[in-house]
């Protein structure tokens, strides 16, 4: 409460200063806010007899983020409120306060931040703190950060602090302290002889360490756990290669069931691109790389690093039915993608050209062997397992092939055609133990017709065909937009192929919205599918819901 009053007084004090004309020319205030509210209703068909979800009839998530800057100095805060959190968000978010408060001083070579901040080293394999409002994810570090650029092409960063854990303040002997250091050198900038070279090379390295006192009575915990990584980014003409290798020393924790083996990860990408053609390949391997600042936490919080998933993210309704999530204890996979634009005026390309994109990705488990004869693989209090670096495990976690064609027929009419084949390990990823992999064929047609210069109508037809899990689905969506302000949408997902006739339901939604410059208002009414969310071995049911959803967002 004290903190809140201080902030409000600060905000009120700025106002007269901001009004003054001479300050005005140099200082700026800007920010953004969003309010999301959901009001639940009973729905007999979904089996919701009560309008309450987790004892509440509504959920409300909101934030306001303000940044004040004056010359080299800037400061800001974010206020968040979850009163209570909307269904699907972690219940620990309930509450309100100022979880993000910071001040930064920047000069040409030097930047110093105190308070909460977000930072990424390389690809994030050793450290990445970020925020994702739509997921309720925020692992900001509260402490200090220094960025030093002694010369162009050379950057050093140092961080120190503790991470956010919902609303819990930091306590001694609670969660850990994170320290990190990163250096990056752009050889083309630093060495004048290389300035005009056809070869572009950037090297980087990072070292991160977390300290947490041993409060675990059962296991001997290492109090300082370090993680190191080295990376490069090499460009030769039209080719570009990046790679990062990370190594973490013994880090027994709840996520890996307290095993003592070190962890490592390798990410490698290569691409070739020229006008109209892009080819991309990626290889990734992760072995025991969960790195959190508290050994006992299983939920989606307190991660120090970030393990990027290797799949193509899908956004269409049915394509996103079986989403993949990185398995931090071990996975190995690759991805290939080709983007090609068939040139304009050619036979197939037509007047505007035609874009084709093909993407294939596959992720398997790593191959694990017993660490010694007496312990089973993954047994707590042992070395866990050994794994051959270049060997793929037998289990497929996810595999998908995506083919997308987008074509503009004429000034008014364009369309996207998409086909996806997915092989999804629902047992491992969603915790449906015993169920076989879901093999699904998904087809999507998305067409837009612009019938006046301001009005257009877009429709989508989708189908998902599988003999596993819930069976076949069909979906349709129609969206009518009036530029620059209005949109109206109706959509329906119909589970017509479900083997239980009482579950052959329509999940319909209707929404409309209004946008004025940077302010957007949208109201949706409808049904949302239920789900089971499993994070770190704890599964929680996200109830199906029916009701109104409002969102208002703005930037200024």
């Amino acid at each position: 409460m004290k903190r809140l009053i201080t902030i409000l007084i600060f905000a009120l004090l700025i106002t007269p200063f901001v009004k003054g004309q001479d300050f005005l020319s140099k200082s700026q205030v800007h920010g953004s806010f969003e309010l999301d509210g959901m009001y639940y209703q009973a729905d007999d068909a979904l089996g919701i007899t009560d309008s309450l979800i987790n004892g509440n009839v509504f959920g409300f998530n909101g934030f306001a983020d303000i940044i004040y800057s004056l010359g080299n100095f800037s400061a800001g805060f974010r206020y968040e409120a979850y009163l209570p959190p909307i269904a699907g968000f972690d219940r620990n978010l309930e509450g309100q306060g100022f979880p993000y408060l910071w001040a930064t001083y920047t000069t040409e070579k030097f930047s110093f931040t105190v308070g909460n901040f977000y930072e990424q080293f390389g690809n994030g394999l050793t450290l990445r703190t970020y925020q994702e409002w739509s997921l309720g994810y925020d692992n900001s570090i509260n402490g200090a950060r220094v960025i030093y650029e002694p010369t162009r092409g050379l950057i050093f960063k140092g961080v120190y602090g503790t991470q956010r854990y919902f609303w819990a303040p930091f306590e001694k002997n609670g969660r850990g302290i994170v320290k990190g250091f990163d250096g990056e050198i752009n050889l083309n900038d630093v060495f004048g002889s290389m300035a005009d070279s056809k070869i572009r090379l950037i090297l980087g390295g990072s070292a991160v360490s977390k300290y947490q006192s041993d409060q675990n009575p059962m296991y001997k915990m290492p109090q300082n756990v370090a993680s190191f990584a080295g990376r490069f980014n090499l460009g030769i003409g039209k080719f570009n290669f990046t790679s990062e290798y990370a190594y973490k020393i013994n880090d027994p924790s709840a996520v890996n069931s307290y095993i003592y083996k070190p962890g490592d990860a390798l990410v490698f990408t290569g691409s070739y691109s020229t006008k109209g053609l892009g080819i991309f390949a990626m290889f990734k391997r992760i072995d025991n790389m969960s790195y959190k600042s508290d050994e006992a936490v299983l939920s989606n919080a307190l991660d120090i690093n970030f393990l990027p998933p290797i799949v193509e993210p899908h956004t269409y309704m049915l394509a996103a039915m079986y989403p993949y999530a990185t398995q931090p204890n071990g996975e190995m996979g690759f991805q290939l993608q080709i983007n090609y634009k068939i040139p304009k005026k050619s036979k197939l390309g037509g007047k505007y050209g035609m874009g084709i994109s093909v993407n294939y990705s596959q992720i398997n488990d790593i191959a694990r062997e017993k660490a010694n004869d007496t312990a089973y693989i993954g047994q707590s209090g042992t070395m866990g397992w050994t794994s051959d670096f270049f060997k793929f495990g037998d289990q497929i976690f996810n595999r998908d092939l995506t083919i997308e064609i987008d074509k503009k027929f004429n000034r008014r009419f364009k369309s996207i055609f998409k086909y996806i084949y997915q092989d999804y390990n629902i047992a491992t990823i969603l915790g449906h133990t015993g169920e076989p992999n879901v093999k699904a064929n998904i087809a999507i047609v998305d067409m837009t017709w612009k019938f006046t210069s301001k009005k257009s109508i877009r429709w989508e037809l989708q189908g998902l065909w599988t003999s596993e899990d819930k069976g076949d689905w069909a979906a349709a969506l129609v969206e009518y937009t009036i530029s620059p302000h209005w949109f109206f949408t109706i959509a329906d997902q119909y589970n017509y192929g479900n083997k239980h006739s009482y579950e052959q339901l329509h999940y319909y939604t209707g929404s409309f919205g209004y946008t004025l410059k940077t302010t957007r208002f949208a109201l949706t009414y409808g049904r949302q599918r239920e789900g089971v969310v499993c994070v770190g071995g704890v599964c929680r049911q996200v109830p199906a819901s029916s009701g109104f959803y409002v969102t208002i967002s703005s930037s200024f």
Partner: protein
Amino acid sequence: MKTKYIIIVLFLFAFIINSCDKVSPPFVEGRDYCSGNKKVLLEDYTGHGCNNCPEAAVIAHDLQDFFCERVVIIGVHAGYFAQPYLNGDSLLSADFNTEAGTTWDNYFGVSAQGNPNGLIDRVKGPSGYVISKDSWAKVIDTLLQNNAKAMITINNEFNIDTKILTTSVQTKFTEDVSGNYKLIVCITQDNIIAPQLNKNEEIGPTPMDINYVHNHVLRKAINGAWGESLNGSGTVSANTSYDKTYTQEFVDDWIPKNCHIVAFVYHEDTKTVLQAEELGVLE
């Protein structure tokens, strides 16, 4: 300029030297917990549809050994994964839900956060009451450092002919305390064989162990979900005793030799458990 780089490198070196705690086996600590009169209540919220829960049951049992039997376990079947006929599966027809278990689950919001999850002495930490299985050891260890502020003695008499159990519970406070203290007396049952979804091959068959052995299953809170008040309100002086006697008729499924009486005393406002005790029905 060169000196700056040297300083940075030295700093990095010092940082690295200081950050590597490599632990060598044995990895498990060996400590003696056998002296101490405080016992801790561990409630394991579970369900037969929860495939991660057998691991939690194993951890609870291991902790009982590790802490020299100073942990009293209740397995509360409540919430989504404990529903009978979950997902229409006829093998999951068992119903271990109880009125008390469901009341506690709703009040403390355990299953809402997922299963498996637990409560330890119903203490409330910065993130609430719910404690995940990997933090159980840490929390129990901290609580066991305290001296018991009350001692519970249970006396059971079971009449085989009438199938009526008479249980006498004596709560004796060893220190001065203030507040309204209430006593809850429950029946738990071991060795119930019923299907359980399971994900860990090392514990049993996957995906379902048809002959899973459920232990510490809460059957009933004899004196109600929130129990009976001992002192009413105000302060209790050291050495004050309260005696309560209850009778309960056993239904067919409750096999006396596998059943225990679990009694615990708690503060009405904070809900924190002061002391817990357990005794077999036929002992």
